[in-house]
């Protein structure tokens, strides 16, 4: 892997080099980026295209529960839902992954055994990331040891916002190493980075440090995922592939609740990054309530009528 990112290996040599590189990326014009995202949001996806998009979106869901009140019972119920989102229709695909806190990983690993569904755990003192590096590394190793094959880490926004880019870079590199074979998703928490220029810089920083995915949000900070922020991250992974030959995935998370929203994201993936990203290996939705809306719309398309929310399982 390190060989493929060699074109940019020089830029992470020092804090100054990294700053020069990140601040040398083309700027983002907020008004223009918002307009582009809104424009793509007007695409009209109907009939066969809609059916295809809904099934893909289901396969891209990281079904998530990240609450203080999570229990093994709750997590088992969610895993059952992940395996068979629509008990009434065996043809309905299962989701991409379950996403839980580290303490719930053993339970989820047990419940998902043999399903092919990925098990993601948040780690690194999620959601604030305000803990010593050693704690973050232990957090990560424990989750991986317990069976997580995907780690959703948070970056230190404090360090990023104060310009300590190399510190953020080294932290991600260390976590990546602690992940071993587990895939690393790097949560930028774009709601705290605020500017689109920051989102672009943080995206590149996370990719340079070896992140396999870049993810918008923890879901604990408003705003969470937005279309324009995801647009900028999709541009970043597209440009990063062009520059380095390495492909990185994107995961918007938090606030995506409807099929309509999910389809807007897929349109954006298609027209910004390209259809190479229209795959659960390269694009995910971090969501919980979204799944039932996708199932309802799926049934509506197939049968021609809406059934009430009581026909879809709550977990």
């Amino acid at each position, binding site marked *: 892997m390190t060989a493929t990112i060699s074109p940019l290996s020089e830029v992470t040599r020092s804090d100054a080099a990294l700053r020069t590189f990140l601040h040398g990326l*083309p*700027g*983002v*014009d907020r*008004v*223009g*980026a918002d*307009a*582009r995202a809104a424009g793509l949001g*007007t*695409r*009209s*996806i*109907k*009939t*066969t*295209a*809609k059916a*295809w*998009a809904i099934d893909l979106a289901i396969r891209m869901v990281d079904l998530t529960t990240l609450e203080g009140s999570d229990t093994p019972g709750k997590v088992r119920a969610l895993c059952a839902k992940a395996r068979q989102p629509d008990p009434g229709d065996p043809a309905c695909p299962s989701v991409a992954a379950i996403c839980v806190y580290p303490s719930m990983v053993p339970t989820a690993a047990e419940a998902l055994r043999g399903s092919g569904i990925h098990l993601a755990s948040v780690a690194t003192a999620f959601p604030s990331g305000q803990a010593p590096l050693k704690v973050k590394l232990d957090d990560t190793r424990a989750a991986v040891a317990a069976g997580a094959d995907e780690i959703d880490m948070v970056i230190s926004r404090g360090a990023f916002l104060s310009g300590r880019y190399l510190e953020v870079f080294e932290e991600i590199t260390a976590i990546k190493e602690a992940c071993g074979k587990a895939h690393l998703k790097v949560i930028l928490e774009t709601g705290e980075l605020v500017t689109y220029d920051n989102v672009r810089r943080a995206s590149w920083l996370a990719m340079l440090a070896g992140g396999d995915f870049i993810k918008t949000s923890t879901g604990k900070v408003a705003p969470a995922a937005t279309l324009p922020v995801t647009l900028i991250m999709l*541009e970043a992974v597209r440009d990063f592939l062009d520059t380095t030959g390495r492909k990185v995935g994107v995961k918007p998370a938090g606030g995506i609740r409807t099929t309509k929203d999910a389809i807007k994201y*897929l*349109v954006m993936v*298609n*027209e910004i990054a390209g*259809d190479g990203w*229209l795959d659960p290996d390269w694009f995910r939705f971090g969501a919980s309530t979204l799944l039932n809306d996708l199932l309802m719309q799926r049934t509506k398309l197939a049968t021609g009528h809406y059934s009430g929310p009581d026909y879809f399982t709550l977990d």
Partner: protein
Amino acid sequence: MSAFEYAPAPESRSIVKLQPSYGLFIDGEFTDGAGSFKTISPASEEVLAEIAEASTADVDRAVKAARRAYTDVWGSMPGRERAKYLFRIARIIAERSRELAVLESLNNGKPIKESRDVDVPLAAAHFFYYAGWADKLPYAGFGADPRPLGVAGQVIPWNFPLLMLAWKIAPALAAGNTVVLKPAETTPLTALLFAEICQQADLPPGVVNIVTGAGETGAALVNHPDVDKVAFTGSTEVGRIIARAVAGTNKKVTLELGGKAANIVFDDAAIDQAVEGIVNGIFFNQGHVCCAGSRLLVQESVADQLLESLKRRMATLRVGDPLDKNTDVGAINSAEQLSRIKALAEIGSAEGAERWSPACELPERGFWFAPTIFTGVSQAHRIAREEIFGPVLSVLTFRTPGEAIEKANNTPYGLSAGIWSEKGSRILAVADQLRAGVVWANTFNKFDPTSPFGGYKESGYGREGGRHGLEAYLAG
């Protein structure tokens, strides 16, 4: 082919009730004309309706009706009363927006998403805006008691049929003038639907008259001795004829003509948004835009990167059925315009510029031209100087801000320009030196009724829109 194929998403035509034939709208009634011609859909060449052609005598009837309405009703009506009619028209346009949008796309060939999201809402906004001025004219800065001019003869183009109608009629009526308007020969239908809206709004007969026809009808209107004011939007060639025709008369005139706008991208621009701006600048409305950013001036140090991004973006443009909600680029408005675009594109290739278009399937029937860019263009090439009025972009490069300004201004036109830079001081310094009526910074083709619009040099004279737009219809 993408894995994500968007299924057809056509806007329904059923909201539009097309009549087999349409008359002239004179004195509040639809009446027969001397002759007739057919109007078609440029996307399919389907005949949509038979349209009356106004003769010199018909135009005379219309001008007489407008004069009567001016003398008897409209010219002396208090502004606050005129405003009520204009507000009513604005509301009806908004209420019937879907019908107007579908009809506009059918007759013009522009994508429904543009007629729906740009043309029709802006047309309504113009009426709302000028309705607000009707009772405040003494405060517009044109004297304590500005008076209307009388009868306005207005000739509009086919690229934004309803919107150009609104640009012309709204300020004229707000100022107390009555109008005779001739829509373009190829796009009369929304103007005729607007005539119906005038009836629906109970606008007094004769205040708005619509005479359909071709160049001769326009000439009859412009040359009519009882017209006090001529307003024209269209080609510089016809603008010259009109300027000659009104020379030596008492007619006031405003002309909004061609352009060859420079869209200048500096190396510190937000590249992704600049690419969007370039696409919007030249492919919006198939490039049938007088202020289109048809000359891209890009700083050499970022030219390769920018062109690569631009080509990738162009490959996602969806060309086809104007009524499909996912269409980005629609049909060329007429066979005549298509052959003009083709001829200039041929000249571009012959002069040595490199031509590129994304792979795109064009429909068999109708008038179509794939989005095209020419690279390696220099100032000496005809495609860098002449207005193509189609989806064709000429790309030139520059090295320094001074060179960019020099090249941008080195044209007989001066309607609009664009500047892309993240550096505010550079934007202000460059904008100050561009000889163009509208300069957009980090955006392009943005229109608003409050903003004046008009050109330098051969792009015309007079301003439309905003407070400035009232001046053309008032005597101080």
